[in-house]
C-alpha cells in the first residue's frame, strides 16, 4: 500500500485506474467479437457449403446431366418412391460405357468394379445427420425441384454442396415453401424458372395440392 494513504486504510492501488480504459477497450471490442462470432459461425467452413470431396471416378454431372441432358432419375432411380435417392450401381454406368469410350483410362475404376462386382466407393456429398429424417419422395411429390436443394448440378464438373443443410435452412422452406414449389412433373428440370412471381405461382400450386409442410419436431426427428 502506498504511503500517501492514512496508515491502516485501504486505498485502491494506482493500477486499478487501468480498469476504466480496459473496460472501454472491452466495450469497443465486444461488437467486433460478436460480428466475428456470427461471421465465422455462418462461414462455409462451418456450414460445409462448398464441400467437394474427390470422387474415385472423375464423373462429370456437367457432361451427363448438362450437355447430354440425361434425367436425374436415369441414375438416381429410387428418388420418387423412397426416402433415399439411390446411388446407381456400376451396371448403370456400363449400360452405355460398354459401347461409349469403352477403353477410356478414366473409366478404369468402373470397369474394374464391373468385373469384380465390388461397388465403386463414391463419397457422399449431401450427408444429413443420422437423427434427421429426410424423405426424397415426399419432397418430389410436393414439387420441390432437385435444384432447390442441390443447386445446378447440371453445371458441376465435381458435385459440391451449395446449401448449408442446417435445420434453420430446412425450416426456412417448411415455413414458407411457396417460392420453391413447381409442378411435380418438372422437378428434375434443372433450369426451370417459374412463370411470373415464384411465390405467387407456388402459392397456387400449394393451395391446389393441399401442401402443408409440418414444422413439428417429430417431422424430422423421429
Amino acid at each position, binding site marked *: 500500500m502506498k504511503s500517501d494513504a492514512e496508515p*491502516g*486504510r*485501504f*486505498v*485502491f492501488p494506482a493500477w486499478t485506474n487501468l480498469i476504466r480504459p480496459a473496460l472501454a477497450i472491452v466495450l469497443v471490442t465486444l461488437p467486433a467479437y460478436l460480428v466475428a462470432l456470427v461471421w465465422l459461425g455462418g462461414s462455409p467452413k462451418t456450414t460445409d457449403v462448398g464441400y467437394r470431396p474427390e470422387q474415385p471416378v472423375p464423373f462429370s454431372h456437367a457432361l451427363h446431366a448438362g450437355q447430354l441432358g440425361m434425367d436425374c432419375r436415369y441414375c438416381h432411380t429410387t428418388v420418387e418412391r423412397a426416402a433415399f435417392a439411390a446411388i446407381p450401381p456400376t451396371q448403370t454406368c456400363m449400360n452405355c460405357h460398354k459401347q461409349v469410350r469403352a477403353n477410356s483410362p478414366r473409366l478404369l475404376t468402373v470397369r474394374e468394379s464391373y468385373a469384380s462386382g465390388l461397388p465403386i466407393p463414391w463419397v457422399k456429398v449431401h450427408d444429413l445427420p443420422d437423427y434427421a429424417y429426410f424423405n426424397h419422395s415426399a419432397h418430389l411429390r410436393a414439387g420441390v425441384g432437385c435444384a432447390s436443394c442441390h443447386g445446378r448440378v447440371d453445371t458441376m464438373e465435381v458435385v459440391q454442396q451449395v446449401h448449408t443443410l*442446417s435445420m*434453420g*435452412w430446412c425450416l426456412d422452406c417448411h415455413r414458407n415453401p411457396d417460392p420453391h414449389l413447381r409442378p411435380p412433373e418438372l422437378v428434375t428440370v434443372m433450369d426451370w424458372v417459374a412463370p411470373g412471381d415464384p411465390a405467387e405461382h407456388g402459392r397456387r400450386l400449394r393451395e391446389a395440392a393441399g401442401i402443408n409442410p409440418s414444422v413439428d419436431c417429430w417431422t424430422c426427428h423421429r
Partner: protein
Amino acid sequence: MSAIPLDLDNTLERPGERAPLVLGKSDLASITEQVCEIAERPRPSREWWLAFGTSASLTFVLFAMLGYLFWTGLGVWGINQPVAWGFAIINFVFWVGIGHAGTLISAILFLFRQKWRTSINRFAEAMTIFAVICAGLFPAIHVGRPWFEYWLAPLPNQMQMWPNFRSPLLWDVFAVSTYFTVSLMFWYMGMVPDLATLRDRARSKIRQIAYGIAALGWRGSGRHWHRYERAYLLLAALATPLVLSVHSVVSFDFAVSQLPGWHATIFPPYFVAGAIFSGFAMVLTLLIPVRHIFRLESLITPRHLDNMAKIILATGSMVGYSYIIEFFIAWYSGNPYESFTFLNRALGPYAWSYWIMFTCNAIIPQLLWFKRLRQTPGLLLVISIFVNIGMWFERFVIVVTSLSRDFLPSSWGVYWPTWVDLLTFLGSFGLFFTLFLLFLRFLPIVAMAEVKSVVPAAGLELGPHRGHGQYWGEIPHQHDEENER
C-alpha cells in the same frame, strides 16, 4: 445524545408528532458502534458456530442430494404422471414468495417515505437475495438435465430453435433473473456507505482490503452522496414494479394452464399478496431472534414489529379472502371440474394439507388484530412460523391437489415425496441459513447510514420541529410558549 426511554411505546399515533424510530441512548456514533461491533467481533459465539455447523451440514446434504439426483435421474423424486410438478415447484414458489419482502421494504416503502424501513431493509434485502438463490435452484434441477440449461436463453443458432416465448415457464426465467439482479444491485449499492464505515474501522490487513474493495472507494463526499441518493431512487423505481410482476409471472405458471384450480384470473393478485405475506413472516422469523441476540431493540423497536405485523395481518386477510372467494368462483363458473377441484381440496385425500394451510394463513394471523399480541415478540415469532408453514402448504395444495385429480378419474393419481425430496427441501433451508449466518457475521446487518437519518439526535435542544416533535415527552414542550407570542 437523545435519551428516549427504551421501553417507550412508540406504536402510538399522535397527530402532528412523529413517532421516534430509534429508542434508547442512541446517537450517530453509538449506532455505528452498535452495528459494526456485530461484524467486528474477533470470533463468533459458540451459538453462531453451532448454527453455522448445522446449516452448513444441511447444505452438504443438499449438494449430496443434487449429486444423487443428477447421477440417477428424476426418478429419485416422487414426481410421476399425473403429478409431474412436485416438491421442486412447491419449493420454488415458496422461496421466491419469501423473496418478496426485501424489495417491498426497500423499494416501495422507500418511495412512500416510510422511514421505519431503515432499520430492517438491509436485513430483509439480504433475506430476499438468499431466498431467491434457493428459489432459482429448484426449477434448475427440475428440468432433469441441468447441463442443457443454456437452452433457456434465447441464443441465436443455426437450428432456429428458440425457447417457447409463449410459455410462462420462460417468462419465469426472465422475471426471476431480473428480480435477482435488481435486488442484488439494490442490496449491494445500499451497503456501500456502511461497508466504507467497516473499512475505516478495520484493524486487520485482510479486513481493510476486503471491505476496502467492497466499498468501491467510497469517501462520503457530497458528490458521492448525491450520486448515491439518485441511484438509490432510480433503483427503487426500477424495483417497484418487480415486486408485483415477479410473483404475477410465477402465478401465470399455473393460471395460464387449463387445469381446474389453476386456471383462474384471481391468481396474480392472490399470489402477490401471498408472497408479501410469507416474505414478511420470514423477516419476522429471522428478525426477532437476531434483534434479541444482538441487542438491537433500540433500532428495531416495537413500532417496527407492529408495522410488520400489520402488513402480515393485511396480506393474510387478502390471502384468506382469496381462499374463500375461490369457492365462489368455482361455483359461479358453473364448471363441474372446477367445483369438484375445490371440494376435493377441502374434503379429498389431501384435505389435511388444505386445512393446515387454511388454519395457518387465514385464521392464526387474525390474532394480530390484538395489539398486545403484535407487541409480544415471542408470540409474533410463533405466528410468523405458522405463516411460513401455511404458505408452504398453500403451494403444496395448489400443485398437488389440482394435478392429482383433474378431468378424468382414470388418470387420477397420488403424490408422495420421497426421502430425496424431503432432504433436498431441508437442504435448501441449510443453504439459506448458511448464507444468512455469513451475512450476520461479516456484513452490516442494519443500514447504519440510513438509520442515522432518522435518529432525533441533532437539534433536540432547539425545540419543536427541528427534532420532529417531542413524542417521548422528556423535552419540555415549547409549543405553548410560541403560540402565546
